[in-house]
């Protein structure tokens, strides 16, 4: 086991949860991300914005080492979670259990609503029905879905509406009790009212976990993210306090053009 780095800067500085250094991701010959570097602090919401095809999703896939399921995908650079290098992580299943992921399109697994949320606890070995009941209710409540489904938890999760399935996916991710929550354009299939509900939930979750929010919506990043990275065509253009991107403090003209809606 790697011990936490002792030579951390002064204790007032925020603790780094996730550190990405010179991360380059390739699919065969084509490069999806070229040398991105940033730190994500503990208990913050870190936004990642950028137009389509700029490497946002690939980045998330590396964070929980889904590259092991895709032989065409390779990456270089250093990524560490809680101070431990992802390459030296011996058991990737334990890594993935600590990271919750929400996909752009909702994936309600073809099992009951209850089983969807109880799946991860069951994989961890929790069998006690009462204990599972508590977890399921807590996770569904936090994903703002409990009131709508509490009386029909045995119905198929895949038969819910798109927005409900997305909240189910979030509940499932929360049932992992993750340290890091990765959200990949979660609001694509969700109506604005539900999106606002989920955004409220995320603000509440911040105190318990670190959240990385990939989004197409610049305004969503502005509403939620403490700090934001702007990716463009595989390049990490700028990382800054989110509000700075919307003021004169913005450093790169491309960032300003993007957040002001001049391209992308």
């Amino acid at each position, binding site marked *: 086991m790697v011990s936490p780095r002792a030579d951390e800067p002064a204790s007032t500085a925020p603790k780094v949860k996730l550190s990405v250094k010179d991360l380059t991701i390739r699919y065969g010959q084509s490069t999806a991300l070229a040398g991105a570097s940033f730190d994500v602090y503990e208990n913050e919401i870190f936004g990642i914005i950028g137009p389509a095809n700029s490497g946002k999703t690939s980045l998330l896939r590396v964070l*929980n080492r*889904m590259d092991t*399921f895709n*032989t065409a995908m390779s990456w270089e650079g250093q990524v560490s979670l809680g101070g431990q290098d992802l390459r030296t992580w011996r058991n990737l*299943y*334990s*890594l*993935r*259990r*600590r*990271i*919750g*992921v929400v*996909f752009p*399109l909702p*994936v*309600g*697994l*073809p*099992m009951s609503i209850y089983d969807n949320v109880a*799946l*991860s606890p069951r*994989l961890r070995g929790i069998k006690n029905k009462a204990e599972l009941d508590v977890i399921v209710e807590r996770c569904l409540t936090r994903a703002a879905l409990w009131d709508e489904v509490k009386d029909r938890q045995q119905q*198929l999760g*895949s038969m819910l509406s798109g927005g409900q399935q997305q909240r189910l*996916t979030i509940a*499932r*991710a929360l049932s*992992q009790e993750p340290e890091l929550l990765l959200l990949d354009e979660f609001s694509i299939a969700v109506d604005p009212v539900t999106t606002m509900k989920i955004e409220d939930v995320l603000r509440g979750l911040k105190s318990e976990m670190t959240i990385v929010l990939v989004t197409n919506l610049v305004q969503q990043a502005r509403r939620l993210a403490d700090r934001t990275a702007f990716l463009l065509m595989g390049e990490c253009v700028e990382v800054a306090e989110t509000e700075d991107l919307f003021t004169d403090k913005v450093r790169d003209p491309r960032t300003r053009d993007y957040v002001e809606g001049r391209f992308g």
Partner: protein
Amino acid sequence: MSAPAPVAAGKPSMFAATEQNVHNQRVMSAVKSLFLGMTLLLSTPVVIILSVLLYKGLPAISWEFLTADPIQGMTAGGIFPALFGTICIVVVALLASVPVGVAAALYLSEYAPDTWFTRTINLAIINLAGVPSIVHALFGLGAFVLFFGFGTSILAASLTLAVMTLPVVIVSTRESLQAVPLAFREACWNMGATRWQTIRKVVLPNAISGILTGVILEVSRTAGETAPIMFTGAAFFLPFLPQSVFDQTMALSLHLFVVSTQVPGVPEELPYGVALVLIGMVLVMNSLSIAFRVYLRRRKKW
């Protein structure tokens, strides 16, 4: 054909069908009738076979026909030993091929990397499906009867049939596994599930109905094959029931061949009766699996 403007006399209407629309619709109906015709043509042989069999074979069918031994040099009596033998052969063949086939398909679909080795295995499976059944028969004779020393027995016959039907099981299982969306697997992997946990919790429950379809096909083929069991386990005439899998047995398919061509003086309805029982048995097994499949599919869907 020449005037493009579909203008009704005097009053133009933007909703009138253009010539192109009309043409498209005619083509569509023509194609539809063509396909319907093909489908009807395809079902004709089935209807004819079934009606001839019913018409000619039904008089032979009786409770005694199903439960008695053949007598008078197989020109009279029943077919019970053959019926029982076929059921034994099918069951043992299923027990041998379904676990192996499903496991191989799971490996190929869920675990195997895309390498030359995997591709070679896939090619071998496809080729195995193309081997004529008489060649399987000779292989079974050499391998199971002589080399492994099972003798001519139910076991040897069933294993020969299992080898022959393995490609059907593997290919249909693999197809149904791959019909389960990748997104389901990824959602599960992302939670930290291993490949096996993902297979057990998500992939198999959703692929089971497709896997059963493969098994149904296999049952039909196993019950009807004659050549592979002729040298390996089926007896010409044997009015006893087998005591173990190491005994020979009669089988419906071989019995049909025998009473149709090898025995003089068989009443005309007897072979038709045997054929009807054979088809009926396959249909009963199929409908059981279909009912099971429908039951599973109603519980699991997306």
